[in-house]
């Protein structure tokens, strides 16, 4: 294209209120894009993903957590499943677990065909505004609830592990423990598993971890999974 043609085109574009894709439009959009890449780069310098313990299928103590954008899925099925079973509908699980999500996805796909309003302004499309509000509240509620439920579960987990794995023999603050773990010595004396109410001021966290992994004294090898040990060490260390 020669210069004359170019000028002609520039004039035509100006009259129409448009700009050519390159370079006028794309360069300016790239500036916005580069800001996004810069944000990505800066985040990656300061906040890193963590790698947990290697996958152990036998770890019964691990509380699974999805990525943040899937919390709502997990929590919707959790909460929904609970009420579904309260209603005695367990036999019709597929309605909650398949039909409901399928209807959700289908609705999302069919949005252009549901929206028959001639207007484009959202406030003039009350049904679509309602659907949007419903969707946002749905996602927001189940995401927040999912995070809350997960936090509660992780916070209760050490005590639950203590109850299931330790309280058979030991007691803390008057709870748990009975004669199960008592050992009779050859001289006829009874040795009882120690009271763990103040174990945190007697043993260091490292000593507690060593005892859990390779028990000494009369304590049997419990083969505790990594997530259980990870939860129990701070829990026991805090008993002072």
């Amino acid at each position, binding site marked *: 294209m020669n210069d004359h043609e170019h000028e002609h085109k520039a004039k035509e574009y100006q009259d129409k209120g*448009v700009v050519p894709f390159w370079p006028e439009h794309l360069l300016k959009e790239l500036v916005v894009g580069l800001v996004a890449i810069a944000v990505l780069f800066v985040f990656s310098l300061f906040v890193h993903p963590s790698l947990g313990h*290697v996958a*152990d*299928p036998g770890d019964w103590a691990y509380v699974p957590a999805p*990525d943040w954008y899937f919390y709502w899925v997990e929590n919707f099925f959790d909460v929904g499943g609970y009420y579904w079973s309260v209603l005695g509908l367990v036999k019709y699980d597929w309605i909650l677990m398949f039909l409901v999500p399928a209807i959700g996805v289908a609705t999302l796909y069919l949005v*252009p065909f549901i929206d028959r*309003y001639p207007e*484009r302004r*959202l406030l003039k499309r009350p049904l*679509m505004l309602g659907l949007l509000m419903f969707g946002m509240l749905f996602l927001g509620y189940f995401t927040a609830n999912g995070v809350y439920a997960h936090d509660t579960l992780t916070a209760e987990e050490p005590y639950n592990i203590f109850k299931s794995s330790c309280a058979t023999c030991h007691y803390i603050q008057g709870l748990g423990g009975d004669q199960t773990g008592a050992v009779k010595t050859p001289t006829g004396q009874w040795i009882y598993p120690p009271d763990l109410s103040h174990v945190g001021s007697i043993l260091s966290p490292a000593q507690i971890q060593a005892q859990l992994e390779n028990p000494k004294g009369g304590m049997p090898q419990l083969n505790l999974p990594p997530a259980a040990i990870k939860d129990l060490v701070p829990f026991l260390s805090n008993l002072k």
Partner: protein
Amino acid sequence: MYTRLVRWIDDRLMVSPLWRDMADHPVPAHVNPSERVSAFVYCFGGVTFLLIIAQFITGMFLAMYYVPDIVNSYNSTKYLMHHVLFGLQLLSMHNWGSSLIIIMVTLHMLRIYWMGVYKKPRELNWLVGVTLLILILAFGFTGYLLPWDEKAYFATQVGVSFAKYVPFIGPALQKILSGGNNIGAATLTRFFAIHVLFLPALLIAFLGLHFLMIRRQGITGPY
């Protein structure tokens, strides 16, 4: 020199008309952020695309170190994080990128929905867009398993277990997804292949459709 090179190529391939067609394509000024700052809302889709390209690049570099089997996947990830120069930053960028893409896609969808862009003639592009959203979520789900730590393993176990509720084909579907009765070696290689080969191929195809339709139909005007 440059002109002669271009002419030499043009004599053989006729690239210039294609390029001119793309470069001179008129774009309405109301979507240009330098005309009106509020026009940045029109950039969410483009930014998503740029972030997807960033994911492709960081992903390619990650694949240089990652070994997709149950013995080495965890160890190779650990090695990348602790011993490879910039390895941790690379992994971080890939990890953050996935979150940023989800945010940008959500904002992009909200803009489309808010402005009723999907109305005639753009219904078909909405269908392609929702498919892209599902593909992107599938990227997130399959990528989560790859480091093979406990978080990865148990989240995948929960996720795959949802498949069994699909009527009739549920149990078969669950078996196909996990490559057996449990989450194990076959699941990992399967998810790896889906994450780095199947999904990118589908994503590129649907992105192509998405852009072709935008080009054909143009950008919606203001109300």
